[in-house]
């Protein structure tokens, strides 16, 4: 809502300048987003009287004008077609300034002196889109006589600044200049003066009847008839006020309709009396599938929730949203029906939303109009048509339905208000504060009965009154305190939240940086690194890239690596923790699973001059994951199982990860083809189910007494087929050792010379410890020999 200070001042005296007023209004709860000051870039603008116009001797398109600027008559060169003798115009004098940093100097144009500039409206700061069509291609010409030499800005009502209200949805009361005046009164005091509705009725009784078929659709509808109107431009002051409010002037009838809407917040509609097609207005919900053509020439298919205004036979307007094609006011219109009505807000909202026809009118109807202004707005429009269009207001008005203009009553108490706020206000202070808002308070003891006019029907419960008191009294007066809780609770993270943080910080310490990616992704990416082929789809995605919810964190991590490597960041190690969404169908909530994923490429811990680094390979990723599992105390329950199941992954370099036998994720190298397609070097990714990891309760650490006896180490080297995993050998060893085996560690794998081509040598260190007594050689051999036997039985020969 754009509120002109000059216009506002017509309804309430405001002494504060626009900046102070804006600050006060903002602190009062209506944010003034912007102030458009029409005077700020303008200097030396006066009214000039054009005395003579003649052709420039050396330029076809230029005119030489003799212009009286008060003290003297100057020659000004003007290129506008509409410049004419004996008119009053806006002149920017030599030494003056115009918006856009334009400075006016004495100049010679094709040999002729020009002392100033005759201005068009857009040259003095009016956006081109809002300039009325009669001035669009030329200079502005006053429609009435003016005083030459007088300041021009006040004469065009632009000695003004406009406050742009950013209104919250509850403050529809301020969607009008009168509403803004009431808000100003609440903040500064004073009285609100309503505009004149002093019309003169002549002619016949209004002969268009009104019938609302469904009071749910249209609770109230009133109309007047004004005959013999002359369609012409509205007076300048009205045009400029509309422009300042962001509405382009069209003609006097349309402009009056918009003007009154801005005054009262009550949208009106004007029909051409002679084109209505009947003498009755019937309102109703549309038939499902009913068709009508709106004034923009489009045929609309209606729904049962749309409200239509009909002539008893067919729709003539889509209520509150848009007029119909044949009943619209045109240049030929002479007789006008003015509609002022209350429509079902939800219907208007649905209709305007569905047809994408949000307008100044629909946005007011969908918030609900104030009943008390429905008839004054009707009177006002009739009065303005009479005054500025020469119309004859017919006798009376017709209506159907009922307006509720009585005050509503909210019961509360001083204690309630004070308790909610934590303040100690006296009843009289509350009463006085509310009276500034135009709310009358009836006091009986501590109980308060607040009378609320319909323009503030957003106020409904005691809490609303509390807010009004607080905001007008001022939040600066609100004391500060801390809650006095009934019971004291220890603030702490849950076990899972705590562990989640620890894991993140540990990964950071290991050199991985934290990523945060979008949960929305493309259909294609939603099927990568997962077995799921289904992903939850948005009903109305904004792009194909953000159309479905992710099934894996890995695809966006790949994007992150591509982004970084193409920007000279070759060593990229990232992790992310975030949700994936397992679809259970579009109509129910999905299962949300917190995942931990990571990606590694390039080198880690690289020290070039020493030639040392950790390559970002499978084993680096596995080592990082193992450190996480170790931190969580899960090492013994974790297993890596070779996996060929992912088309995006290298089939020989990928492992599924299990926790206590259950699948929780995978780690591996990207498939060379996938790497090539994404222009990546060797890249490792992993993703594990963080929820599953965090669900394991570890309890407290169980301390063990330090061993008193030494451990015994036995190193063995085994020859095995190349495709036998070290894990297989370790399993055999662990199963065969009856007791005292505390560690099995693979310390070397060798292929090459002295080993058959399809074999490898695996060196394993076995550590034995008896916590009760020293292990003798004989005792070790008693356990160790069966281990060797078992390996031999499985076909693994001992080497050397």
């Amino acid at each position, binding site marked *: 809502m754009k509120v002109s200070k000059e216009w506002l001042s017509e309804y309430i005296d405001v002494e504060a300048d626009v900046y102070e007023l804006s600050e006060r209004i903002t602190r009062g709860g209506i944010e003034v987003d912007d102030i458009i000051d029409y005077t700020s870039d303008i200097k030396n603008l006066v009214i000039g009287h054009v005395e003579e116009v003649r052709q420039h001797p050396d330029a076809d398109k230029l005119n030489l004008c003799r212009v009286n600027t008060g003290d003297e008559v100057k020659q000004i060169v003007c290129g506008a077609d509409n410049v004419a003798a004996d008119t009053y115009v806006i002149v920017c004098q030599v030494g003056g300034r115009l918006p856009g940093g334009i400075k006016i100097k004495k100049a010679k144009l094709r040999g002729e002196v020009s002392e100033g500039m005759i201005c068009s409206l857009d040259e003095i700061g009016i956006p081109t889109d809002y300039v009325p069509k009669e001035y669009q291609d030329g200079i502005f010409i006053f429609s009435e006589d003016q005083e030459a030499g007088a300041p021009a800005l006040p004469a065009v009502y632009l000695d003004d600044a406009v406050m742009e209200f950013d209104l919250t949805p509850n403050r529809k009361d301020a969607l009008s200049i009168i509403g803004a005046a009431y808000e100003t009164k609440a903040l500064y005091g004073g009285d609100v003066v309503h505009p004149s509705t002093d019309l003169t009725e002549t002619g016949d009784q209004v002969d268009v009847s009104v019938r609302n078929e469904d009071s749910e659709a249209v609770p109230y509808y009133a109309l007047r008839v004004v005959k013999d109107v002359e369609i012409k431009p509205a007076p300048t002051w009205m045009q400029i006020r509309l422009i300042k409010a962001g509405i382009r002037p069209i003609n006097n009838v349309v402009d009056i309709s918009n003007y009154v809407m801005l005054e009262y917040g009550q949208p009106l509609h004007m029909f051409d009396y002679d084109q209505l097609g009947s003498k009755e207005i019937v309102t109703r919900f549309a038939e499902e599938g009913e068709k009508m053509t709106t004034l923009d020439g489009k045929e609309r298919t209606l729904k049962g929730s749309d409200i239509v205004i009909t002539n008893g036979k067919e729709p003539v307007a889509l209520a509150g949203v848009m007029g119909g094609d044949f009943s619209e006011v045109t240049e030929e219109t002479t007789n006008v029906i003015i509609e002022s009505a209350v429509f079902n807000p939800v219907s208007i909202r649905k209709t305007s939303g569905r047809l994408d026809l949000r307008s100044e009118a629909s946005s007011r109807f969908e918030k609900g109009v104030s009943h008390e202004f429905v008839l004054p707005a009707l009177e006002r429009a009739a009065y303005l048509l009479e005054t500025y269009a020469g119309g004859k207001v017919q006798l009376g008005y017709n209506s159907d339905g009922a307006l509720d203009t009585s005050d509503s009553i909210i019961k509360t108490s001083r204690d309630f208000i004070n308790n909610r706020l934590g303040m100690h206000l006296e009843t009289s202070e509350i009463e006085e504060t509310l009276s500034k808002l135009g709310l009358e308070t009836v006091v009986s003891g501590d109980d308060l009965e607040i009378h609320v006019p319909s323009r503030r029907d957003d106020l409904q419960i005691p809490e609303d009154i509390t807010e009004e008191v607080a905001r007008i009294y001022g939040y600066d007066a609100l004391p500060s305190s801390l809650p006095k809780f009934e019971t004291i*609770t220890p603030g702490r993270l849950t076990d899972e939240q705590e562990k989640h943080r620890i894991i993140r910080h540990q990964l950071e310490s290991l*050199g991985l940086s934290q990523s945060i990616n979008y949960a929305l992704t493309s259909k294609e990416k939603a099927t990568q690194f997962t077995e799921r082929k289904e992903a939850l789809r948005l009903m109305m995605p904004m792009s194909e890239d953000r159309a479905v919810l992710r099934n894996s964190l890995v695809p966006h991590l790949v994007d992150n690596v591509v982004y*970084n490597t193409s920007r000279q960041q070759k060593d990229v190690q990232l992790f992310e923790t975030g949700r994936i969404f397992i679809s259970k169908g579009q109509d129910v909530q999905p299962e949300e699973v917190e995942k931990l994923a990571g990606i590694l490429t390039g080198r880690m811990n690289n020290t070039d001059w020493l030639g040392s680094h950790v390559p970002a390979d499978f084993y680096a990723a596995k080592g990082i994951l193992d450190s996480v599992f170790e931190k969580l105390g899960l090492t013994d329950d974790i297993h890596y199982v070779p996996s060929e199941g992912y088309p995006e992954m290298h089939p020989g370099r990928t492992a599924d990860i299990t926790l206590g036998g259950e699948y929780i994720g995978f780690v591996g190298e990207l498939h060379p083809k996938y790497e090539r397609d994404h222009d990546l070097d060797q890249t490792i990714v992993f993703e594990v189910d963080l929820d599953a990891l965090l669900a394991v309760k570890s309890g407290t650490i169980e301390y063990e007494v330090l061993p008193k006896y030494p451990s015994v180490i036995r190193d063995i080297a085994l020859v095995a087929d190349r495709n036998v995993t070290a894990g297989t050998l370790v399993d055999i060893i662990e199963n065969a050792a009856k007791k005292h085996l505390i560690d099995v560690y693979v310390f070397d794998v060798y292929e090459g010379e002295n080993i058959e081509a399809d074999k490898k040598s695996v060196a394993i260190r076995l550590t034995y410890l008896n916590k009760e007594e020293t292990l003798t050689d004989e005792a070790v051999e008693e356990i160790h020999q069966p281990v060797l036997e078992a390996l031999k039985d499985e076909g693994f020969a001992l080497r050397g």
Partner: protein
Amino acid sequence: MDTSQMTHIQDEFDVSLETVEDARSLQDLKVRYLGKKGRVTGLMKEMKNLSNEERPAYGQKVNELRRNIEASIEEKSAEIEAAALEERLKNETIDVTLPGRKFNIGSQHPISRIIEDIEDFFIGLGYEIQEGYEVETDYYNFEALNLPKSHPARDMQDTFYISEEILLRTHTSPVQARVLEDRKGKEAVKIICPGKVYRRDSDDATHSHQFTQIEGLVVDKNIHMSDLKGTLELFAKEIFGTEREIRLRPSFFPFTEPSVEVDISCFKCKGAGCNVCKQSGWIEILGAGMVHPNVLRMAGYDPDEYSGFAFGMGPDRVAMLRYGIEDIRHLYTNDLRFINQFKQTEDGGENVESI
């Protein structure tokens, strides 16, 4: 008793010792004089040619000579060792200005930093952290928060719908609705809810279709709006600096009444006016208010008995303000040149004494 030979041996030894420069020649010298066939040992063989009376004195002299030579060798040996060590240390000297072996550390995401800071502050006040669903039902995202289907305030946030009833949450407030409902209208509630939220916005420098929110909710039997102000005042000082002040401006949220926007005095210009606060001296940072009685009632709390306050803010915005980040998209691009700027620890700066 002729001791001239001994003197001669001593003199010769002394001369030889002078020429010794390394451990090997010292060892040779030692063998030559003290070895089994050494010259000092040889002297002992002379004993048999002496009288019984002379022998003890002679033996004593020879032993004296042996001790002298031994001591000299010992001394020399220590000298040589010291010189060798000196030499070794000289050779082992390294260039300490060369880079150390790299142990990379990664960086925490700035949003994550901000969230942890805020969480920790409220944990200190006895709050618990609650997380909810990112894909919510229309009921918990809107209706339970006093936003019925036709409510015009639904315009305030464009929503990503998955179906008529399922949507991506537009704020973290549904967590509040669910927690209130879980507590069945009986227990007090003191929670902080951080999380990702989604709005149907085109991504640009100041808008992101995905961002984070952190909300707080307190419901108990005797909660006033002054408690909200006091809590947020403490918060502003803790997170943005001890000199910060807050200012409440009336606003509107369907789930609170009264509702306020909370501004903090600008931490960059201290209120004088700068580009961060758009010359106003104040930065809008929070939305807050007293929990709407409808919200309490829907969750089973009696609004006559219980009252509460709620507040919410955007860690993305806080991070952008705190670090001067000019484009919200940086937070979701995961450019290492960006993220890696957030490695080091932070504190209150010069003006704040650590405890």
